[in-house]
């Protein structure tokens, strides 16, 4: 996919683009549009949260007290850190620091795994307590009407988010593999930038989810 010239690599120019600059601009625009679609995907769930919170104010307030605040905060710190490291990875490759880039990407991926692990533990807790969505709800601690709907929204939003974490992590692993193969350099780094962008979105969604679910 690229040619090497003494440490600096060149991106492959597709047959229909006149120049690399135009190609880079096009892929960036494409990625931003795609991120826009992801925002709209989550927007529906945020809307549902708002509507049901309005209907079942008491249940939502009470149920959010029963979420594990430490787990949530840790996850937030983990994700924000991972966004930092992926941004640093991008800067590293722009300066031709391949090893540093790879290391930072590995750290980011570990953060993603940590996030998923903590989430898994939280979910397991909920299954044990009976704090399950819809018809399966039997959590004795929160009995206000609409509590089951809180957990429905909780599982749907965090579940969809976790799915995106997995997708983002897979993309980063793929980028990492290409970094390790020596494909990227100071003259060829746009895929790293795009992978990082996607990861930032995953982080951003969580930054909105966390306060809505855990803090208020």
């Amino acid at each position, binding site marked *: 996919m690229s040619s090497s010239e003494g440490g600096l690599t060149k991106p492959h120019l597709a*047959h*229909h683009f006149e120049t690399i600059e*135009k190609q880079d601009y096009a892929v960036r625009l494409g990625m931003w549009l795609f991120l826009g679609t992801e925002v*709209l995907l989550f927007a529906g769930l945020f809307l*549902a949260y708002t509507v049901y919170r309005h209907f079942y104010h008491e249940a939502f307030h009470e149920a959010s007290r029963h979420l594990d605040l430490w787990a949530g905060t840790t996850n937030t710190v983990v994700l924000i850190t991972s966004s930092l490291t992926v941004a640093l990875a991008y800067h590293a490759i722009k300066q031709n620091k391949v090893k540093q880039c790879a290391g930072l990407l590995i750290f980011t991926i570990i953060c993603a795994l940590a996030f998923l692990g903590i989430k898994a533990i939280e979910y397991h807790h909920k299954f044990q307590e009976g704090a399950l969505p819809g*018809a399966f709800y039997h959590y004795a601690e929160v009995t206000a009407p609409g509590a089951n*709907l809180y957990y429905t929204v909780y599982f749907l939003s965090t579940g969809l988010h976790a799915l995106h974490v997995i997708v983002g992590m897979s993309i980063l692993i793929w980028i990492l593999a290409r970094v390790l193969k020596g494909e990227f350099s100071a003259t060829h780094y746009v895929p790293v930038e795009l992978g990082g962008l996607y990861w930032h979105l995953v982080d951003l969604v969580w930054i909105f989810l966390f306060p809505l679910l855990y803090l208020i």
Partner: protein
Amino acid sequence: MSQPSQLSTEHADKPVIPAVNYLNADRGVWSWLTTIDHKRIGVMYLVSVLIAFLLGGIFAMALRLELLTPGPTIMGANTYNRMFTLHGVVMIFLFMIPAIPGVFGNFMLPLMLGAKDVAFPKLNLLSLYLYWTGATLALAGMIMGGTDTGWTLYAPYSTTTPTTVFPIVLGIFILGFSSILTGLNFIVTIHTLRAPGMGWMRLQLFVWAIYATSIIQVLATPVIGLTVMLVGIEKVGHFGFFDPSRGGDPVLFQHFFWFYSHPAVYIMVLPAMGVISDAIAAFSRKNVFGYKMIAYSSLGIAFVGFFAWGHHMFVSGQSSLDNGAFAAISMLVGVFTAIKVFNWVATLYKGSIAVKTPFIYICGFLFFVVFGGMTGIAVATVSLDVHWHDTYFVIAHFHFIMVGAVIMAFLIALHYWFPKMFGRMYNEGWGMIAAALIVFGFNATFIPQFLLGNAGMPRRYYIYPDRYQALNVASTAGASLLAFGFLIILIYLIYALVRGPIAGDNPWGSRGYEWMTTSPPPKHNFETTPIITQDSHSYQEPGEEVEHVVI
């Protein structure tokens, strides 16, 4: 390679099909299935959507036959209910949404921009595969028994019905992805792959229409994706998101659903309007009147169309305030369409109009878009919609637009661009016969349905009171004519494909940019990127005095 200002005209020598073109450049089924050539992808979309249209049409004929008598005629209630659901799902998600963008957007867009392909050719192929996957899943759901919820999937019926919902909603979800990626591809293509000299105000109006459509596809489709997945999850897992017995709100479903499904109708109609703009210019050899107004009104429809969804919910129990707001906004969208219609008719003024098959369809289109559009305004009038909602009046209104406007436009595109895509010409005589049959048959099918709605016949009715029979019989008779017309078109187009006379590079003498290359085009469209020096569809000869007329 031809320069932009040099156009083949009817005065050329005996027309030939270029020996090597995109159709025969690579051989074998595998070369087609792994192609990244936007033209081949467009042709594969064409075959796919035509199969979908045939399927949806068969469902429609079955429905109309059943409705010949007030009681049971040829099928049971459950079969009928599934039939109208599947007619809607197949027609909307497998035909109307993908057709014009997938076929003609794909084929023509790079040609009209002077580009060698779309921005992301492999993503384009992925879109096609996603379309096939989603369509297969939806069809599998049908074979497994299908569902009877109506294409609108209203909860809590859709989440509690014992019928097969999940494969169909999964299919719709994947089809949505196909739509999003196509829209994304087109937006980036239009932004980054325009030939030198092609400023935004030189873009053909079909390109503007595709641009506005793509914006809607990208922004609205994720919402329907989420919505159908919520229905599927709730059906399988009983989460109670929309089920009042578990605390959910069924009206919330309607908001989610229509937030996409109203802009979706603009996904269907905007490309159709783009085709009309180009075709009217070509067949009257005239610049499009009010180019800027038409371009901006496309964007206007896309934008304002996002805020009008509640007009599908006037009697849902929504507040009066909401109803008023949605009604007012819906009126604004109507104005944009009115602007376009004025401009199209004015394009004919002082034109040089050719009597060809597409032109018959254009006349039909103009009548249908005004009638259908204004009955849309009528149902947007809240007090009137109380009576008309969920009756055959609404069915007639949207079929006037979806069939009368969009499918006419699809046929215009098919005939206008047939020589471009395949290098051959269809038979004009048969073309005009079919066009007359279709325009007449269409009126005969759907005007009785307006009257049925007035008389009070609700939608989705398997059994109906005796007094509605006469109009139903009339509508079915019209539908038979319509079906016959489509069949004729299928036959003569297939014939033209194999044995039609060779059309030459530009049989219409059209000045759209896509006619700058050979017909059929070569695999890479242009050897060297053309430089654009004049507006599209400008029919003045160089050096000739330009007569400006201002009205």
